[in-house]
């Protein structure tokens, strides 16, 4: 009996045993940290575009790329918080457009100093998000529906506020996109600060862990004493504040408060999250993946332009990448579940072998 058990244990352990061939190690690394695959994809596509058109990696092009990335990535970071709790924020694109106009309007028409304008816009974004959060947690409205309201409402509000573009003249305002520090646009520095801050909150604070827990199983989180409503509310505030920041960047980029170019950005933000490995069911996803997902979309978009691919192919390429990311993610989950079952079998065989001594004799 004891010999069969030990054989069983060996067999079961072999099934989960870690093989150490380089290929197996690489595969394990990819399974554990799917974000690496996306980073590799970003670098590879960048290299391909550069090899076709060497201008693509010129300093000016890189700065452009960086500014485009900062907008998408910051929106995607805010969006990822909502998706991690199992929700969604459809309003970020329209809010970005609205806040671009509001920022210009405050600074130009109301003569509010630039930095105070920035602060007010970001606070407005957070307050708008607070509204989302309260409607979701107090009235139990689905996040999709609440933010769909904003998607529609804010898209009209910006034009009502400023039927014509408001030209921004303040040099400080324009420097967000126009100026660089050691060759890096200020917008990119803003992105870096926000990305590191978001990573810190999610992975290095108890609040971040609680946000994951809410997305993983809201009822279990509630019964574990986690203030679920507050956590859900705060992620929509974060997302709203991010839309405020991106609104400022957009106004600075276009040198005026106008919003036409921002349409569809909420979908790009969501796509960045999904490509970056954030599960739409909630509970999973990391900052590096989100930023890399946004980077992949920006490189593809700008790169296809740089190599003169017709614009309507761009959407098709982005769509194909999204599909690919979804399929890879599912394959990964299925693999994880299988290995989970194997691990359980080892544990069960082992537990079964801990028979009380009198049974063995």
């Amino acid at each position, binding site marked *: 009996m004891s010999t069969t058990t030990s054989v069983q244990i060996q067999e079961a352990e072999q099934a989960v045993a870690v093989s150490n061939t380089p290929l197996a190690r690489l595969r394990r690394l990819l399974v554990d940290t799917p974000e690496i695959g996306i980073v590799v994809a970003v670098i590879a596509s960048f290299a391909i575009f550069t090899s076709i058109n060497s201008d693509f990696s010129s300093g000016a092009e890189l700065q452009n790329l960086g500014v485009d990335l900062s907008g998408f990535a910051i929106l995607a970071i805010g969006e990822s918080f909502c998706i991690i709790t199992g929700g969604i924020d459809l309003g970020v694109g329209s809010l970005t457009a609205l806040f671009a106009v509001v920022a210009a309007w405050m600074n130009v028409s109301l003569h509010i100093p630039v930095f105070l304008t920035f602060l007010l816009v970001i606070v407005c974004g957070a307050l708008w998000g607070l509204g989302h959060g309260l409607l979701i947690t107090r009235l139990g409205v689905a996040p999709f529906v609440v933010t769909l309201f904003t998607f529609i409402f804010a898209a009209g509000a910006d034009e009502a506020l400023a039927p014509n573009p408001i030209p921004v003249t303040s040099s400080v305002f324009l420097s967000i996109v126009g100026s660089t520090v050691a060759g890096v646009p200020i917008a990119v520095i803003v992105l870096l600060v926000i990305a590191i801050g978001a990573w810190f909150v999610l992975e*290095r604070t108890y609040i971040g862990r609680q946000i994951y827990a809410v997305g993983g199983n809201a009822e279990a*989180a509630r*019964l574990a004493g986690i*203030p679920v409503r507050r956590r859900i509310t705060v992620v929509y505030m974060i997302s709203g504040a991010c839309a405020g920041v991106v609104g400022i960047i957009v106004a600075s980029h276009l040198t005026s408060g106008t919003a036409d170019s921002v349409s569809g950005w909420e979908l790009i933000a969501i796509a960045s999250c999904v490509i970056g490995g954030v599960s739409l069911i909630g509970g999973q996803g990391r900052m590096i993946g989100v930023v890399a997902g946004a980077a992949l979309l920006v490189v593809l978009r700008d790169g296809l332009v740089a190599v003169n691919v017709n614009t309507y192919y761009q959407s098709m390429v982005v769509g194909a990448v999204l599909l690919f990311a979804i399929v890879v993610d599912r394959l990964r989950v299925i693999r994880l579940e299988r290995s989970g079952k194997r691990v*359980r079998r080892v544990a069960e065989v082992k537990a079964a072998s801990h028979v009380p001594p009198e049974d063995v004799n």
Partner: protein
Amino acid sequence: MLSDQSQPVAAGAGGDLVLTGVRKTYGPVTVLDVPRLVFRGGEVVALVGENGAGKSTMMGIIAGAVQPDAGTVRVAGHELDGAGTHAAQELGITMVSQEFPLVGQLSVAENLLLGQKPGTRRFLVDWRAMDAAAQTMLARVGLEVPLRRRVDSLAVAQRQLIEIAKALGREPRVLILDEPTSALGPTESERVLQIARSHAASGGVVIFVGHRLNEVRDVADRIVVLRNGRLVADLAPEVATEERIVREMVGHELANAEQLDRPEAEAPLVMRAQALEAEGLGPINLTVKAGEVVGVAGLMGSGRSRLLHVLMGSIPSSGGTMNLAGKTYRPRDTADAVNAGVALIPEDRKVQGLLVDSSLRWNGTLVVLRRIARRGLVLTPRADRSKSREIIASARVVCQTPEQPARSLSGGNQQRLIFGRWMAARPHLLLLDEPTRGVDVGAKAEIYRLIDEQRRDGMGILAASSELEELLSICHRIVVMRNGMITAEFDRSEFSKEAIIAAAAVDRVPA
């Protein structure tokens, strides 16, 4: 009807339902073994037994939902070939139970006629014919509700009657009522009993699975008692006193008289609830001492879980006072409860307890995150890892690594992980809801050991369970709940299975 009963009836004659040699095992456990049982047309047969006695399995087999390992089920001579519930329905077997719920968003009439199409129109819904048919069905159960009302806007009792009306609408030969009155008040219950009687009077077979013994005696022409999967008694109502039924249900095993050292007499109270009320609960007076294990017994729907959830702040209380370890305790939510030192290990591990896709580490440290965080905010990987190892070790979770997902653990190990999670929080009061549901025998013993360790540490423990044996073996005291109230209390020296079952199942109101 009594003369009917005394007549020997040939197997398979008339509308009888006959079980022959029906057996069902799950692994090594035989859950049902019935050589022969006849339900005659024109009879209401009550089926009683403790949890796990085999009632649900028998009902499942008759209704075609469970495939027996051996034996046959015949209705009026036709054999049920075991090919699912459809085959059973073809034979005229209909079960009213929670497993075939109404569709909440549809109207009363639509629910009643779901899958049927009265009237003569080919493609369109013939509303007039539908209403007429639905009205007739409602009249049979004596219920008056607007046909266009959405079902989810109705009271539980009305919905239960609609379920029965729907079942009767299929004109069944065999009508199975699975605890049809558990959610009903006295008036509606009486109506259900009448429906059962009149269906039998019209020649049908009625099987009434019941917990309330006075109802069972009231309605049944025969009372069949199951214990451990076997048929132990087939009683006529004249001889079936409540004492007799309980005795047959329990058997002659004695309550576990094993010694359990008592908490000290002057041990402080960790919980004192006075006149505590909430929706469907109370008023309740309850105390739990430090180092004491108090059991909560009661039937399904008696308010066991509800009581625990009110103490946890997960369901709001509407009146009364609570005092936790000497301080006034008024939780607004579960976060308040955790901060005050209350812990709940819920009934359904996967739905209410675990983050199944997250690691053991994340699951383990979930309630102590703030305590291990630096300055109450920053969570360092080192603190997180070492705490999770400590938790896994203290609860003796068998695993490969703290990083494996919780779904990869067996049920018993998952439960231990949740124990470890809460032990790390060192609460004053630990609430356990079905602490060993769905874990195997070995893991059960291990969980009892964990409970014992916590008790010795001075934690107060309140454990709700549907397994009476479990409560008898681990508790110092057992309170019995019925209809949201505590109806009896037993000290360990007075433990008696019969008395507890009687307190849970028998209405004290004299006839």
